[in-house]
């Protein structure tokens, strides 16, 4: 059992009267791929957002690399998100005005990297993810699977310590989804990135080293993590 890189302990969070988390805990080691599964509305995305420092829980602790994320102020959390975490969501959410390579370079640009350097970092991802020749397309000119691979490159381009992926294959058919998962897991392993993957599809969750289920805002371990290969 590896020590935790990212960890949630007994998180509780309500949106007004609606309790979304009622005691959620999980932990993932460096380089581990952890799947969060569970029925719709059970609190998966809320849990992911707490781990990523997007939401602050009402109570409980979130730790990244030993530090309390939930106690950081908004500015420090936003730096943590930008420099240390990567994100992929269900519908790629590419910026439509930007080309594919600009979209991939975006997190670097936002972090202050100069344009030429950022684009140079972004480009190798196109060959790596089977996107050769699509560098200058805009999101409207990409298929769902292509757009999602661009989003994946954008999520990984900063070499984040943790990649948060919320239903990254949710809008894709099973072959395109499989391709995204293969690439995500391979790339994450290669650069030692921990992946927190929210999915309701068991075949997608099967790529993970371990699985946690959320039911009514509470977590339980479904499949304990094996040690990452």
């Amino acid at each position: 059992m590896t020590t935790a890189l990212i960890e949630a302990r007994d998180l509780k969070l309500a949106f007004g009267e609606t309790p979304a988390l009622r005691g959620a805990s999980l932990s993932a080691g460096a380089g581990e791929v952890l799947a969060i599964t569970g029925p719709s509305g059970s609190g998966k995305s809320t849990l992911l957002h707490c781990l990523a420092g997007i939401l602050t829980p009402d109570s409980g602790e979130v730790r990244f690399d030993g530090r309390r994320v939930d106690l950081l102020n908004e500015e420090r959390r936003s730096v943590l998100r930008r420099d240390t975490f990567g994100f992929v969501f269900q519908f790629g959410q590419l910026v439509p005005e930007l080309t594919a390579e600009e979209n991939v370079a975006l997190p670097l640009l936002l972090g202050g990297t100069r344009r030429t350097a950022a684009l140079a970092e972004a480009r190798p991802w196109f060959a790596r993810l089977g996107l050769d020749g699509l560098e200058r397309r805009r999101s409207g000119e990409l298929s769902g699977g292509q757009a999602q691979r661009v989003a994946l490159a954008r999520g990984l381009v900063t070499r984040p310590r943790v990649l948060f992926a919320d239903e990254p294959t949710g809008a894709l058919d099973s072959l395109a989804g499989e391709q995204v998962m293969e690439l995500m897991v391979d790339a994450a392993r290669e650069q030692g990135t921990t992946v927190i993957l929210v999915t309701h599809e068991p075949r997608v969750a099967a790529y993970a080293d371990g699985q946690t289920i959320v039911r009514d805002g509470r977590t339980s371990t479904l499949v304990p993590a094996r040690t990452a290969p």
Partner: protein
Amino acid sequence: MSVPLTLLGLLEREPSHGYDLKRDYDAFFSRGKPLPYGQVYGTLGRLARDGKIIAGESEPGDGPERKRYVITEAGVTEFESWLDEPVAPEPNLQTVLFTKIVLALMLGRDAQRYLDAQRAAHLRRMRELTDLRRAGPLVDTLLADHGLFHLEADLRWIDQTTARLDALAEAVRR
């Protein structure tokens, strides 16, 4: 389908006559293929020989058999270890898992626990198959895919059953 273990389960609920066992077996588990009396008594005979059940004295009355059967400690142990063991995560497990769940509910046991154990066994197997397909040649991928899609179908059934446990418990109680 395991007739001996199912009969043991029905006897764990309460001591019963062969006739009652056949009636309940046919009602819940036979799927339109009634259990012949010969098989009921043959199975009960073997279970008694192996010390899993005890046959009471014959009672006066009509019909060929008026014995009440009672499960023994050894019988309970055998039944419980069967119930505890997740079914091998291979395609077409429904019959056995279905039987376990219905028996668990009849006996007022925590059926959710068995479904969770089964879900975990399935997910582990899916992880193995996923590793296999990622590492192996295309032929392995195709075979693994077949397994993965079937296991996924089982999982959907497990999820639906989990969601319906209360209603199902109502339906099998009497």
